[in-house]
């Protein structure tokens, strides 16, 4: 809807760190379908959901049974459910709007990666990739796990043994295989240690096609683009490969079956490969020829135009961005902390990266003020232009009046109600999407309200009072052990706070103390040197206006 108004170059890539979010030690992040909510799993087993627009915490999902670090988070398609896998081998399914646990199972191994079926609106089916076993389908409703085949043996009529049990499988230990659902959720693409991509129908536990990855080295990550047209694999040979998905979007199973039937004369593995070659074709390869680094958490941008990969080297936080044609367009460098997870916002040119220290960095475009937006008759020039005057430009014309002939045809029909279909409703609208969690305003306490009045009075009195307020605020942080309320609000987001924002913080800090007034008197005497810090941290009011 806003496409004609907003700058078309917005579908671009981010450049600088805009902000960072903090809540304990974050391990992994995931955006919901529209990018309005960001879910993050913490090292203490809780899961926090940020409202990405206000950058404030919308919900915290805390399970008292689970205190182990979260290894991955995954949203359901319409954002109603969240799947969380943890280091204590458990998988928990949460209902996002109520914050209740729907189901929880424990697996044999710790799942490194778990994904909810993207085809269903209320999925209870998910794909889990454990550390040292084959990927499995876990059905919460029935309560069973199904191991998926990881390789196709050479014998033509024996398919990989399907196992329907919760017992440990006997067999050679697999190295971790990566797997993902396709866009509609009826196929699973498995990348195995031999460097092959298997297309598996998980309902019948059959391998339908096989695509060998050139180079034959183990596949570490396998990810689809949002529109399902491209597939990305990250291999042990440090190359990211992009495949084009040739299968149609709907009725995929039937197309695959048809393809299988049409292939004559070959059987078994060869047949799989032939079918496979009709499903995926290699499109591009990305690697860093200079440093030959391993990649971590590669993924597509929301529109599939860009591919992003994080460097897996310890001690550096580098994000590489390529365009789909294969050119490296940007390397983003963050603070010297290893990168552990990465996500691209589904809509905006925003990247979110998680560092080893548990902070979530938000990368966005560096904004340059668009002055012509402020004055419509202002034309921005790239460089000086020579202006040539007309002959009669400055002549005095006797008859020039301010007669403005309105060239507007006011009789045209105007439609004020029709809304264009959203670019993001790429599926049926039968299910209401959970885009936002309702905001629950945190009530001001009575003390805060008194303080507010006091502060207002002081502000109108003198500017020096602001310093005192800030001063009190800083020492309160130090002296009061129960700054939880403060900690909570501060923990959400960190921006350069303006003086006004600092006041609001100060009010909240005061509320946590029983005797606000006396403390302030005391603390004013205490920290004179704190004033410098707080004033510098406060920043300029003018600055704030140009955010």
């Amino acid at each position: 809807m806003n496409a004609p108004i907003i700058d078309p170059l917005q579908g671009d890539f981010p450049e600088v760190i805009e902000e960072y979010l903090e809540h304990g030690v974050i391990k992994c992040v995931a955006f919901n379908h529209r990018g309005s909510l960001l879910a993050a799993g913490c090292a203490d087993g809780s899961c926090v959901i940020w409202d990405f627009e206000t950058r404030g915490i919308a919900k915290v999902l805390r399970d008292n049974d689970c205190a182990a670090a979260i290894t991955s988070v995954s949203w359901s398609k319409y954002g109603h459910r969240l799947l969380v896998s943890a280091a204590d081998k458990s998988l928990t399914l949460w209902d996002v709007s109520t914050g209740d646990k729907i189901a929880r199972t424990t697996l044999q191994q710790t799942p490194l990666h778990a994904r909810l079926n993207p085809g269903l609106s209320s999925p209870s089916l998910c794909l889990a990739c454990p550390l040292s076993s084959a990927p499995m389908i876990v059905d919460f409703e029935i309560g069973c796990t199904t191991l998926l085949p990881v390789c196709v043996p050479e014998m033509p009529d024996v398919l990989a043994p399907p196992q329907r049990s919760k017992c440990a499988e006997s067999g050679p230990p697999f190295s971790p295989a990566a797997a993902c659902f396709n866009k509609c959720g009826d196929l699973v693409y498995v990348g195995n240690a031999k460097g092959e991509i298997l297309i598996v129908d998980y309902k019948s536990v059959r391998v339908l096609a096989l695509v060998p990855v050139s180079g034959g080295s183990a596949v570490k990550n396998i990810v689809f683009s949002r529109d399902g047209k491209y597939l990305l694999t990250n291999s042990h040979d440090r190359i990211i490969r992009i495949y084009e998905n040739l299968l149609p979007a709907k009725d995929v199973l039937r197309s695959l079956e048809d393809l299988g039937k049409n292939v004559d004369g070959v059987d078994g593995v060869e047949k799989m490969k032939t079918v496979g070659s009709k499903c995926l074709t290699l499109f591009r390869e990305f690697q860093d020829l200079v440093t030959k680094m391993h990649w971590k958490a590669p993924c597509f941008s929301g529109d599939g135009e860009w591919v992003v990969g994080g460097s897996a080297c310890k001690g550096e936080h580098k994000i590489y961005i390529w365009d789909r044609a294969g050119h490296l367009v940007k390397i983003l460098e963050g603070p010297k902390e290893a990168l552990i997870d990465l996500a691209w916002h589904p809509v905006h040119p925003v990247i979110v990266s998680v560092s080893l220290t548990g902070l979530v960095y938000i990368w966005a475009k560096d904004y340059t003020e668009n002055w012509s937006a402020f004055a419509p008759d202002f034309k921005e020039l790239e460089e000086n232009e020579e202006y040539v005057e007309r002959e009669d430009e400055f002549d005095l014309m006797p008859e020039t009046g301010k007669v403005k002939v309105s060239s507007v045809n006011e009789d045209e029909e105007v439609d004020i109600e029709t809304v264009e279909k959203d670019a993001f409703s790429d599926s049926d609208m039968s299910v209401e999407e959970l885009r936002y969690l309702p905001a629950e305003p945190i009530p001001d306490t009575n003390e805060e309200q008194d303080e507010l009045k006091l502060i207002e009075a002081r502000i109108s009195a003198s500017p020096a009072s602001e310093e005192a307020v800030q001063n009190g605020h800083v020492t309160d942080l130090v002296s009061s052990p129960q700054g939880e309320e403060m900690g909570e609000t501060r923990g959400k987001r960190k921006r350069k706070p303006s003086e006004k924002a600092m006041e609001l913080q100060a009010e909240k800090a005061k509320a946590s103390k029983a005797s606000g007034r006396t403390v302030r008197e005391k603390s004013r005497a205490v920290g004179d040197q704190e004033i410098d810090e707080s004033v510098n941290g406060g920043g300029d009011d003018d600055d704030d206006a140009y955010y």
Partner: protein
Amino acid sequence: MAEEVPSASYIPYVHSQTLTSHAHALSSLKFSSDGRLLASASGDQTIRTYAINLKGDPIAEAAQVFTGHESGISDVAFSTDARFIASASDDKTVKLWDVESGSLIKTLQGHTNYVFCVNFNPQSNMIASGSFDETVRIWDVTTGKCLKVLPAHSDPVTAVDFNRDGSLIVSSSYDGLCRIWDSGTGHCVKTLMDDENPPVSFVRFSPNGKFILVGTLDNTLRLWNISSAKYIKTYTGHANSQYSVSSAFSVTNGKRIVSGSEDNCVYMWELNSRKLLQKLEGHTEPVMSVACHPTENLIASGSLDKSIRIWAQKK
């Protein structure tokens, strides 16, 4: 209830009820999005809500009174789920109230002059407020923090509105400009102005977010197309040269524009033909605010004469 109209199919609105609970002039009226409540803000420093019972007689019954502001109130807005009300006051604050209980939840401090207008975004996680300090502030509902301060205008900001999906904010000011902002980043996207720029007293988005209805202090209402940055309709006949009179789209029964006026009447035009359909008479002082019920053919008007009048369509 004079009828100005031509077409026989037009059923005129008639006066249904007068509410005189306020002690001072009315400044703003809003219906909740489910149509069950009407909120009114007044110079007597209170906000009142009324329960709307369409089948009842009287239609509107007093529900709650919200006291706490230290100065007159210029604007009030419902959150989308009608659980909260935000009010903009001359005491430089925006206050957030709980509708059911009538209690004050939060006070949003930050403006340095009278706060003139306020609105929730459709997701109701943000509030935009415009003030005499020439800025528009965007607040986070949950924490009450000011998320952004937009250097919007060079004169008092008279109106703010969010579009349908909450991605854009439009602001108008006495400096004659209407500006459109990206609510996520706070960047200015467009400025709409004409050759002559009379002070703009009111602005709001059309239901589909493609047009804005702009009221200016030269007795004119215009409908602008945002993408082409030109106005496409003009509505005249009413009087508006002093006050910030609000107007609204009425879509429940044919597309219409409804506006208050300084000649004590409520004007209603047909949107496309721009014909004046009806002039609702009854108030004894300038009509400052009008609100259209979201689903029923009901109009509420608030005036400087301290009364609210409800107009319904004659059955």
